[in-house]
C-alpha cells in the first residue's frame, strides 16, 4: 500500500535538499504578481502569513538560541534504502572524524546499517540505525552529571565538558546508539570536537543544522540517488517531512517504550 503510493510520486518531489517553504511552480502568486499588488493588499497579505515567513528562513541567526518551536526529525524510507549501500555511514564518519570501524565491539559508531530478514516470508530490508533523538530520552534520565541532555529543538547531545564517561547512558539506550571513545584522537573536524573518555552519538550534524544545513548522511543518501532519508522540522506542518508522515504510515522503533522518537521509519 505504502509502496504503491510512494511509487506514484516523481522522485524529484522526495529530494530532501530543497527545504520547507519551497512552494514550487504551482503556487498561484508569482513574485512579479505579488509585487504588483497595492500596498494595502500587501500589508494584509503579510500580516496573516507573517509567522510562516519567519519560519521559511531556514538558517537561524548565529547569535540566537535554538527554540522549541522547531523539532528536528528524520524519516527513513526503508523501501528505498539499498542493502549493501553504506553511503550514510561513510559520510557520517567523514563529517564527524570517525575512523572506519575495524573493531566493531569498541570503535565508535554513530550510524550503522542493519539488514533484516523475515525468516518465514524471506522479506528482507535494510535500514540505517542511529540515535533516535527521543522526546523523552532514557540516556538523559540516567545521566548522573547532566552531560546527556536534549536541546530545545529536540536534538539529544552529550556535553563532553561534563561527561565523566560512566556509560550509564549506553546501557539505558534501547537503540544501542551510543559509543564510548576508548582511544585518543588527533584528527578531529574542528567543528566536531571528540576525544578519549567520553560517550558520544549521532548529533544530527548539529553544527550543520544550526547553520541551516542538513545532516551529512541525508546529503550523501541523496547524492547517491537513493533519497531514502528526509530531514526536517516535525513541528512545521508544511515541511516536507511533516507532509510525508501525514500521508503514509510510518513507524517508531520500539514504539511501546513511548519515547516519542524524532527518527521515523517507513516500510517496516
Amino acid at each position, binding site marked *: 500500500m505504502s509502496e504503491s503510493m510512494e511509487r506514484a510520486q516523481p522522485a524529484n518531489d522526495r529530494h530532501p535538499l530543497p527545504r520547507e517553504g519551497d512552494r514550487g511552480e504551482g503556487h498561484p502568486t508569482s513574485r512579479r504578481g505579488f509585487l504588483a499588488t497595492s500596498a494595502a493588499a500587501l500589508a494584509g497579505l503579510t500580516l496573516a502569513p507573517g509567522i510562516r515567513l519567519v519560519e521559511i528562513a531556514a538558517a537561524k541567526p548565529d547569535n540566537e538560541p535554538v527554540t522549541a518551536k522547531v523539532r528536528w526529525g528524520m524519516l527513513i524510507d526503508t523501501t528505498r534504502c539499498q542493502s549493501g549501500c553504506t553511503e550514510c555511514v561513510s559520510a557520517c564518519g567523514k563529517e564527524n572524524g570517525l575512523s572506519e570501524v575495524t573493531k566493531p565491539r569498541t570503535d565508535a559508531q554513530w550510524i550503522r546499517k542493519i539488514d533484516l530478514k523475515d525468516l518465514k516470508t524471506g522479506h528482507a530490508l535494510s535500514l540505517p540505525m542511529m540515535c533516535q533523538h527521543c522526546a523523552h530520552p532514557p540516556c538523559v534520565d540516567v545521566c548522573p552529571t547532566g552531560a546527556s541532555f536534549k536541546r530545545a529543538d529536540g536534538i539529544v547531545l552529550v*556535553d563532553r565538558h561534563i561527561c565523566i564517561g560512566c556509560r550509564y547512558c549506553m546501557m539505558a539506550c534501547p537503540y544501542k546508539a551510543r559509543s564510548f571513545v576508548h582511544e*585518543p584522537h588527533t584528527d578531529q573536524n574542528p567543528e566536531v570536537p571528540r576525544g578519549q573518555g567520553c560517550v558520544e552519538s549521532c548529533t544530527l550534524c548539529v553544527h550543520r543544522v544550526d547553520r541551516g544545513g542538513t545532516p*551529512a548522511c541525508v546529503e550523501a543518501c541523496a547524492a547517491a540517488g537513493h533519497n531514502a532519508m528526509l530531514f526536517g522540522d516535525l513541528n512545521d506542518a508544511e515541511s516536507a517531512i511533516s507532509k510525508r508522515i501525514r500521508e503514509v504510515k510510518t513507524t517508531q522503533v520500539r514504539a511501546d517504550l513511548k519515547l516519542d522518537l524524532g527518527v521515523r521509519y517507513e516500510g517496516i
Partner: protein
Amino acid sequence: MKSLAIAVLWGLTFAAAHAAEPGRTPLPAIAIEKPGQCVEPKDVMRRDHMKLLKHQRDKTMHEGIRTKPHSLNECVSCHASQKTGTVLGAEGFCQSCHDYAAVKPDCWDCHQPKAKPALQSQSGPSNRDLLDAMQRGRGGQEVKP
C-alpha cells in the same frame, strides 16, 4: 701568552652567553603573526580568555549559539603558527604560555589545535574559494565565509 688569549676569549664567550639568558625561567614565545585587533583588549584576553571561552562553550553546546569572536576555533584560526599550523608545541601560542604559567587545560584532548580552514564544513570557505584566493596570491586569508 696563548693561554691568556684563550682564557680571555673564554671569559668573553661566557659573559655573552649570560647576557643572552633571560633568567631562570624561559619566557613564553608569544608571536602575533597576524596583525590586527584581537576580539577583546589585550589585558582582558590575558586575564579572562578562559572565562570567555567557557561562557561561549556552554552557549554553543546547549543553545546552539555559534557566534565566532569567542569561539575556540576562531582563536586557533588566528593564532596557529604559520610555520607549524598549530597553537601547540614549544612555541605554540597557547602551549608556550600555558607551560610558563604551569597550567594544563585539556581543551586539546578533544578540540583540534590545527587551523584547517579547508576542513570546515558549510560555514568556512570552500576548497575552491581557498584555491582561487591562493591563485590570486592572497594566501587565502581574505576569503570571508
